[in-house]
């Protein structure tokens, strides 16, 4: 599906009591694995009329919210959690293989796999990105020193997001105050830093704390553009009542190509994926409810914004054909059709 979708229509919904924070697809099927606030991993086959989730099990597991999940090579899944632990899983048997305790000193926010599936990257609030060998679970490299542990206002910062470049040679990380680092995977050196401070709202007068951060980051399929997402310039930071934000960089030049904000639909962007063809990107998130923004990458403009029927979306992935998405969110896992004009 190369055409820019005009509608996002919910085709299937699995209502849940828990929150689904992350997901991984199973190529060649409609099976989706998601990480949950119940500290578990669950798989559901959305091809079934009445899909029933099946839980993963085994010697190793999590004890808190599962916030990161990536599919590596060799039929392996790697999950990360607020419990600071990474767990390796056999995707077919749905059983755990190994765990790395204290993979981070603080809460793990995201786990993502390299394009060839041999590495996974994890980011946590210790402000370090760690690269792990998918096959044996060994630590390959630490990418550290790029993100301050404190905000300018002397509060703990958070390292929310990471993404590999399409060729797997680079990895970008982004934090709460809008600082972005592009790293060279091979040696852990910093290639470029970028800033999107608009994603961080510090209220010095009325409430004296902050909200926001870059929650989503993605390279375009050609590797030229880097998109980050979050929320910014919120009047009342008690709520997610501000415009969803995207900033598009020509990262090699260090230039901002576009600063985009939603109109009527408000909330925070939790995940960005470029469509495989590269002609458009989709950003999802929300406040209480879900939101979806479609950006035409030829014009770098938001061409549609949708309030999704389901609640806040935490993660999504394209279907194999690219004509639909699976969404993990608050109290739901859903499938949607992308309807072109």
């Amino acid at each position, binding site marked *: 599906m190369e055409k820019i979708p005009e509608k996002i229509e919910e085709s299937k919904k699995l209502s849940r*009591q*828990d*929150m689904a924070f992350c997901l991984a697809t199973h190529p060649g099927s409609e099976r989706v694995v998601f990480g949950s*606030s*119940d*500290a578990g991993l669950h798989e559901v086959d959305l091809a079934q009329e009445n899909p029933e989730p099946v839980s993963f099990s085994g010697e190793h597991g999590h*004890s*808190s*919210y599962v*916030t990161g999940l990536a599919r590596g090579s060799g039929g392996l899944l790697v999950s990360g959690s*607020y*419990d600071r632990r990474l767990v390796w899983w056999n995707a077919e048997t749905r059983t755990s293989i190994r765990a790395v305790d204290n993979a981070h000193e603080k*809460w793990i926010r995201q786990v993502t796999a390299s394009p060839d599936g041999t590495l996974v990257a994890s980011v946590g*609030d210790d402000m370090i990105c760690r690269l792990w060998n998918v096959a044996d679970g060994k630590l390959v490299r630490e990418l550290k020193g790029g993100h301050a542990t404190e905000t300018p*206002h*002397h*509060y*703990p910062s*958070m390292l929310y997001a990471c993404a590999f470049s399409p060729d797997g040679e680079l990895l970008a990380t982004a934090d709460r105050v809008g600082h972005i680092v592009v790293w060279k995977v091979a040696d852990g050196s910093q290639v470029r830093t970028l800033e999107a401070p608009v994603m961080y709202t510090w209220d010095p*007068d*009325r*409430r*004296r*704390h*902050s*909200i926001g*951060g870059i929650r989503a980051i993605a390279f375009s399929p050609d590797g030229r553009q880097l998109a980050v997402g979050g929320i910014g310039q919120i009047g009342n930071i*008690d*709520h*997610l*009542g501000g415009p969803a934000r995207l900033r598009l960089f020509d990262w090699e030049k260090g230039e901002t190509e576009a600063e985009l904000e939603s109109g009527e639909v408000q*909330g925070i962007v939790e995940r960005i994926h470029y469509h495989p063809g590269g002609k458009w990107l989709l950003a999802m998130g*929300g*406040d*209480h*409810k879900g939101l979806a923004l479609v950006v035409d990458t030829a014009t770098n403009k938001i061409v549609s914004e949708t309030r999704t029927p389901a*609640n*806040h979306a935490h993660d999504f992935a394209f279907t194999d054909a690219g004509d639909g998405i699976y969404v993990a969110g*608050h*109290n739901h896992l859903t499938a949607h059709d992308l309807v072109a004009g």
Partner: protein
Amino acid sequence: MNPIPRQSGCRVQDHEISRRAFLSHSLAVGSGALLGTSGALHALDEDSLNAQLRSTGRSVILLWLAGGASQLETWDPKPGRPTGGPYAAIPTSVPGVHISELMPQMAKRMHKVSVIRSLNTGDGGHGTAAEMMLRGRKNEAALDYPDMGAIFAKELGRADSKVPGYVSFYSQSEGRGNTRKTSAFLGARFAPMNLDADMMPPNITRLDDISGLDHAERADLRDLLSARFARGRENETLKSHAAAYARVQGLMSSEELFDIEKEPQAIRDRYGPTLFAQQALMARRMVEAGVPFVRVARAWWDSHGQNFETHAEMVPELDHVMATLLDDLEQRGMLEHTLVVAMGEFGRTPRINGSLGRDHFASAWSAAIFGCGVQRGAVYGKTDEDGLTVAEDEVGAGEVFATVLRAMGVDPHHEYHVGVRPIPLVNPGIEAIRPLLA
């Protein structure tokens, strides 16, 4: 109720010496905010409580967690439950007691702290709940009650003191108005000195074009004329007028008390660079100087969205400030005559909303207390496994209020009078939480 290792009796006599020493070289302050009085009420009688109590040098520091901090991310975690959120519970220095992993410093000091986990205060509105928690009851339609600070300013403040009886730091604007009606029928004499924008009271500096000698001579002249005018006149308003001038003069001569730069850098560094931390340090300075009641408001905890991010940001600060304040008071020998209370107007819902927020919740929440007159290492009350209801030892705003009064040696059933109407400090039937009292 956990076993209580030991008590924390107030040894007041020891403190008197250090206080005098402190006063002798650092202050003689008064409060411009205390100008004015309400002479029509019997409540203004200076001898309404015993003079001995005033001589004890006891003080209260209220850490006012405005907006409502989450009990689940502080004192009453429920890890692994659907309502529990992502943070773990960690063991504390009291066997069997766990608190949120966001509070590792207080966890190490838990044997010096008491926690109430069974507050059911029944009011989820910021304004009305704040008024209630600060008074121990709701105002009547035709009568506002004085708040905790005004009562302690009256009951613990000395008539001859030149320091303010009640100082309030509230720098954030959100929720500040909920704390403004303070002294009610006690009158402006016991209202707080509000330090909102700055830690230094405004306009206490002598004008440049008035010399020190001129300033002193003006004061002498005013005193002479006032004394002559008052001769043969028995009038509360005149007395109050003279006292207010004395306090202002004291205040003007004591800039140093309000100047945090006078505190050693090492102490300031221990507290940390945030405004809340610096104000907590100022509270310690105030108490050390003899201010009976200091409120340090830390707003704004109202995390309807992104509760876990907000608490990951704010609770470590609270943890550090409370732990540093506790250590500082203890090392100075002040913990035995200073009571520290940390609470807000309510807690937050166990249910997590779609924005990963928690909303207002007054049915089962927590407060913490340590220092003068209260037990150490005690946990009072219990909530159910999801934190939805109080399971044991339910208490309300009145009981907390009565406990604070009793811990400071003030009888909660003492009565003021508005006209001929007796007004007890707490509503009839309300008692202090006895197991928490030392």
